């Protein structure tokens, strides 16, 4: 036993040819966030505090699709959402439709702790943020040039993109665009973190800007308890990928359900559940009450990092996902 932590910066069709100038900052971001999480666990912070802390860091990092660096809606606006859950008590909080709140995950925590509700959205959530005096910024703070470009590409291709889609084949003479994003677009994703301490306390949190070119008002899996986020006394899960697939698959909840009702281990359960989702659509990170870690995806890759008290530590983007034979 002992503590364990896993975090992700999104699953998707991340090309192996991802150039260093795009790969290195993300790896550095994952390393930094992992260090923050490890330090907090070593300082005996409760996993609920740890996941909030780590997700805040991921939100602040402009290369991941959450907080600053969120992808844009079809109107070119920002709509962020997040959820957080405490395993032992199963208390949870969620927010959607935020446009000025710097750290959505922290607002989700405040909904959990300071209101009689679980989930606040849109103008009501923004009003609550002001009442609580959380840090807000002009929507332009969250928008990055890369995301303006992603939206443009998506609208040209006339589709909604998940975190990492196949690169759009651009005209060879479109050198400027090719140089800017040589392998296509959507090289960022939802973020999340799960943690367990030495006493088996579990927690999970997930945060995102959603899908590039999504309809205004579209809610994905990240703020939905049981879809993008779940924690109980058995495990904690944070998922990423195509929200609609995660919602119908109740992905985060199912990992715990399969462990409990079918007696599978964490790794087996995670692989089982991801296998049920159409390929190319999902990934998750999870930890169990006994300190196991699972990171599974059926996409080309998933930005992730994990560590446990026994000294294990990993930062990865690719490597074969765990296969399940049915």
């Amino acid at each position, binding site marked *: 036993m002992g503590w364990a932590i896993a975090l992700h910066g999104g699953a998707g069709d991340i090309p192996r040819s991802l150039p260093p100038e795009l790969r290195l900052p993300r790896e550095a971001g994952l390393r930094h966030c992992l260090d923050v999480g490890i330090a907090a666990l070593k300082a005996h912070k409760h996993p609920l505090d740890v996941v909030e802390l780590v997700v805040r860091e991921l939100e602040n990092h402009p290369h991941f699709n959450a907080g600053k660096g969120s992808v844009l809606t079809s109107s070119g606006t920002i709509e962020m959402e997040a959820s957080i859950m405490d395993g032992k008590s199963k208390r949870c909080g969620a927010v959607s439709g935020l446009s000025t709140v710097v750290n959505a995950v922290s607002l989700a925590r405040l909904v959990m702790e300071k209101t009689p509700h679980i989930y606040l959205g849109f103008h009501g959530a923004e009003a609550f943020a002001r009442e609580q005096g959380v840090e807000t910024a002009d929507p332009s703070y969250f928008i990055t040039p890369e995301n303006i470009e992603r939206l443009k590409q998506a609208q040209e291709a006339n589709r909604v993109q998940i975190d990492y889609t196949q690169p759009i084949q651009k005209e060879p003479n479109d050198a400027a665009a090719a140089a800017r994003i040589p392998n296509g677009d959507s090289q960022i994703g939802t973020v999340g973190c799960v943690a367990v301490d030495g006493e088996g306390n579990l927690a999970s949190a997930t945060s995102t800007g959603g899908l590039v070119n999504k309809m205004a008002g579209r809610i994905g899996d990240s703020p939905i308890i049981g879809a993008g986020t779940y924690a109980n006394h058995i495990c904690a899960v944070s998922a990423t990928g195509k929200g609609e697939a995660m919602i*119908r698959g109740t992905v985060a909840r199912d990992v715990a359900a399969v462990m409990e009702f079918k007696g599978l281990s964490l790794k087996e359960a995670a692989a089982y559940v991801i296998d049920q989702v159409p390929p190319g659509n999902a990934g998750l990170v999870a930890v169990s009450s006994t300190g196991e870690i699972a990171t599974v995806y059926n996409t080309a890759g998933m930005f992730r990092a994990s560590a446990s008290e026994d000294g294990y530590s990993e930062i990865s983007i690719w490597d074969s996902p765990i296969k399940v034979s049915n």
Partner: protein
Amino acid sequence: MGGWAIAVHGGAGVDPNLPKERQEEAKRLLTRCLDIGISALRSNLPAIDVVELVVRELETDPLFNSGRGSALTEKGTVEMEASIMDGPKRRCGAVSGLTTVKNPVSLARLVMDKTPHSYLAFAGAEEFARKQGVELVDNQYFITEDNVGMLKLAKEANSILFDYRIPTLSTCGGGAALESPIQMNGLPISVYAPETVGCVVVDKEGRCAAATSTGGLMNKMTGRIGDSPLIGSGTYACELVGVSCTGEGEAIIRSTLAREVAAVMEYKGLNLHEAVDYVIKYRLDEGKAGLIAVSKNGEVACGFNTTGMFRGCATEDGFMEVGVW
């Protein structure tokens, strides 16, 4: 075994002091909705169409807490939400924060059928509604005198809870309502009775579907989303089963109640009745809720740990029952 089955509900958690006339009114509405559903099933409409049809009827009638007759937010306005799910491919649609859409469940269906998404909310959902040309009305349409009175009581009850002041008896007989000792969501059930509506159906082909619709919690913060539009919590349908829940929203979300029924059937091999019993008994912790469910085998079941649940169910072999307690 086999054949169609249908169940409807108008909320779990009924005030034991509810006047007889109100109970009868509720039973008449539930019966009417069952008849509509049964008629549709006999005409071979698929389950997904039947649940939408029935929930539309429940939304349109002002009696329960959905569509017209929705509970009011703290600001005295109406914000409605709904979700619908089609078992065979687990397609789903959900909406929240609707203020002008006459039938939220139908907009949820359009999200499922006409967009690449599963869930639209607030301004974005209203915009989509406009583009789809669904029937829109003024927010006033949804507000009933009953609920305006209830909101006032709710605000008084809230202040009692936090300030420990004795309530002043209001002339509309509100004082009597506040005497009810049963609580849900931490407050008197006479004021906070959920009365969310829902319908689950399995058709002759064994296809399951579920839909849930609500105005939410009386005196809720604007922007508050409950369990009804959340797939896995208030609504769920898959190859095996269709489920719609009602009660304390927080408890339903924490226990992912609708999915729980399906999960124990899928992963533990329980049958419908065992699953519903098990989930209500053991998976709600301190929460108060109820649910209706149908299985692909044509079975129907209801379960609740509250004082009463407005419900009705029927199966193809002629069984039909409407109840409150």
